[in-house]
């Protein structure tokens, strides 16, 4: 079946079964491989994308439920790695293996959109992605740093960049 998806500001038509998880439509049909498969059961967050601005685990969202929505993936955050969250991530050298980091960054961006100056407790409840390498120490610092960068130039946000 054909479904119209709007991803990173571009409208695509994908021909998949309605129950196909959005994750696989993104990765295998649209070649947007920045979004990762970690568990397939909504647990790990490696597949986190934004659907209408909210963080969603794309492995657990069927394509048919994403029709008409505005979807943003890591590739849509900035064309060149200059989103404040990406800048903060580079400054603090956050990633280790990096496999979880697309999802982690998307979760952090969503948190900062809801809560521009998050406390440590906000971060704990707002970012629930798994990182096996254990980068949490730097993730926390980088979220605070990104919050500072964003308050310095408040016009920058994922949705604006598109």
């Amino acid at each position, binding site marked *: 079946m054909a479904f119209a998806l709007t991803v990173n500001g571009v409208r695509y038509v994908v021909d998949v079964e309605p129950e196909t998880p959005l994750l*696989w439509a993104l990765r295998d049909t649209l070649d947007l*491989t920045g*979004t*990762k498969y970690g568990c*397939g059961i909504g*647990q790990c967050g490696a597949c986190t994308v934004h659907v209408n601005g909210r963080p969603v685990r794309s492995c657990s969202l069927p394509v048919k439920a994403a029709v008409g929505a505005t979807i943003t993936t890591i590739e849509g955050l900035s064309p060149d790695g200059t989103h404040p969250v990406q800048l903060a991530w580079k400054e603090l050298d956050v990633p*280790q*293996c990096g*496999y979880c980091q697309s999802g982690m960054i998307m979760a952090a961006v969503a948190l900062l959109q809801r809560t521009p100056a998050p406390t440590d407790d906000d971060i704990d409840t707002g970012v629930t992605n798994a990182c096996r390498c254990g980068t949490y120490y730097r993730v*926390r610092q980088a979220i605070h740093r990104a919050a500072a960068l964003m308050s310095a130039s408040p016009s920058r946000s994922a949705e604006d960049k598109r």
Partner: protein
Amino acid sequence: MTPKMDRREFFITTAAVGGALVIGFGWPRRAEAVDVTTPAAPWYREPSVPEINAWIVVAPDDTVTIRIGQTELGQGVWTACAMMIAEELQCDWSKVRGEYASANRDAREQAPAWTLKNPAGPKPAPTDPRGGGGSGDLPATNERVSWTGVYRRMSTHRSGSVKMNLYFYQLAGAEARERLLLAAAERLGVPASELTAKDSIITHAATGRTVRYGQVAARAAELQHPHPETIRIKSAHEFTLMGTERRNLDVPSKVTGQAVYAIDVKVPGTLHACARACPVWGGDVKRYDFNAIKSMPGVHAVVQFPRPDAGLIRNRQFSGGVAVVADSWWHAKTALDGLPVEWEYPPYTHLDTGNMQRALIDAMKEPGHVIYQRGNVEDAMARAARVVDATYDVPYLARARMEPGNATALVTDDRVDIWIGDQSPQETRFSASQIAGVPQENVYVHTTHLGGGFGRNGNGPQAEHAVMVAKALKGRPVKLQWTREEDWSVGTTYRAMGAAHIRAGLDADGYPIAMDLRAAADSNAAAPERGLTPPAYFVPNLRVSNHFGKFHVPCSTRRATGSPSNVFFVESFIEELAHAAGKDPYEYRRELISRSTIVFEEDWLKALDLVAEMSGWGKPLPEGWARGIAIDDRRNNREEADVCTICAAVCTVSVSKAGAVRLERVDVAFDEGFGFVNPLSVRKQIEGQVAWGWNDAMHQAFTVKDGRMEQNNFHDFPVSRMSEYPREVHIRFFRTNHWLEGVGEEAMSQIPPAIVNAVFRITGKRVRSLPLRKHDLRWA
């Protein structure tokens, strides 16, 4: 878009192809391999300008491409290996980009003679600060791999990326630098000895003339060095790039989603495969019914594959299985879920965690394999004022890397291409060659970054599965990808389950005069003696033995191998002795280490004292809080001067009255030897190990029932999140006078006993069986 597969190819019902049974559609063989070029791909490519040597290409714009034989899996080798080369090359660090070395070229080309000798001698003393590290010459071969090919050692294991490669990476940089100087000398018409190189610029001091690397690189590529064996490399104290904090070169690509992992590789015309092997290791397929799924969307074939030859996978036994091949992975996975498969079970289905644990306990009643003996333990035990006796156990644990096992393979009659994130590309080259029946010279391993590793090929036979399936579908690229469930419960190898029974006789002051330390593990365990031989604590009459239970579970080198189990046993037990003696656990350890004959004893004390000071040891804490301490080093033998890494940790823990445990703060004192290559990467590794230690202590266990693993995904094998990571982590490095054994796994084993020791001080409950979450830790 997914390529449309047409089905004009002939339909085959069954065909036995090299041990694999294919049912489905077949394709004609193609003799040629495809060439895939993805701009962000990290694998080896033929350079557009001539290379200077096998490791270094300098472009006219001064960009330096450094070929790296180790695989980046989060530990920072992509950066550290480049730093070892750039240190000598004297290039502008901001112009460096990485690329993986070629395992194929390594099969076809011999190593340059000047790389084969460690300039510090074949076996330099670990306290010798000259270049070359502590490892000496590499052995020429291991079981399946020759380390005399052009890229020498293309393994990412044994914490060896620095200690085993340093000298030939430095030499590679130095040789290229010398040839750039020769080319510049020719161009400027001055002797090379009057030139200096720094930041990719060569300067003739007398005349002030300069030339850039990019201007002379083409000429340097043509020149030979007349006496490469005379090229000198720097000693540790001369390093200027190494030892500085450098952000990792792969990080920018990892914040944009552009980094290429094997799971992201897309070869034109690829079919997707999802595999399932018999969940009881050593089993096989009895029958399956392709008809049940053949009309499902996108399905092309089912390939039955045999048990991989254990000789290819470090003698670990995996199972035979089936792979559904389809036009997309989701189609393959969905069809595999619907495929009826009956298994031929091996005779292990009666095994479960309970009876395996009893077998380990029984094994400890036998004399075992004695790995250390001093004095007369039983005589001294009989004289003891008091005997302390405890039994501990730890479960199987998976590495649980985030990227599920996968590989893309294309097999033709005379060539294999495989795209894979792999800690041992040379071994994978060998495996692929054996399975596909083509010479190693015709196997092309295209290395990608790995989404976590934590222990070499122990991550299982994904390469073998991919090559077997691709061989059955010759001429067609196949991307084989395990589900998370398959990866964690069938495809991987485990840290062995283990147990210990330790008895000590104490004198009237509470110090041990006798100890009988028995540690048992699955006989497949990797380095079951690590962390035991001998304890750093002085006991005049001591016996240490390993005991084994023979099981079928594939175990291998999970991060830190034997030490997380053994350090949990030893550091818990020492704490129990301190408690029995009524002494402070830090002071008690200090006293026993001071009495010992351990080599680098003063460094142990340095670590212990530093971590005590950092953590505020002895200072008051709120009710329900306590500190726990633990220490370990890693070396082959603690009675000989040996390359080693010493680390001590204090965990500050709180336990609520309801029994909820929190890790509030961690202090780590870590050995920096003569210095690190990239201290920033070391910090990150230690920060990560804090999470690993916490997970080992608190959450994680794989349990066996009916001969198979009971856990298979994040819901039943928890990985801690932000909220559980301590808000405070303090890391300090201390200088010592020896080369380091490693930095990626030496701070992890201390965390679980330190936590458990703190939990005891709060609750009065001594946990001897991990993980903590099994236990009721309420206290009043």
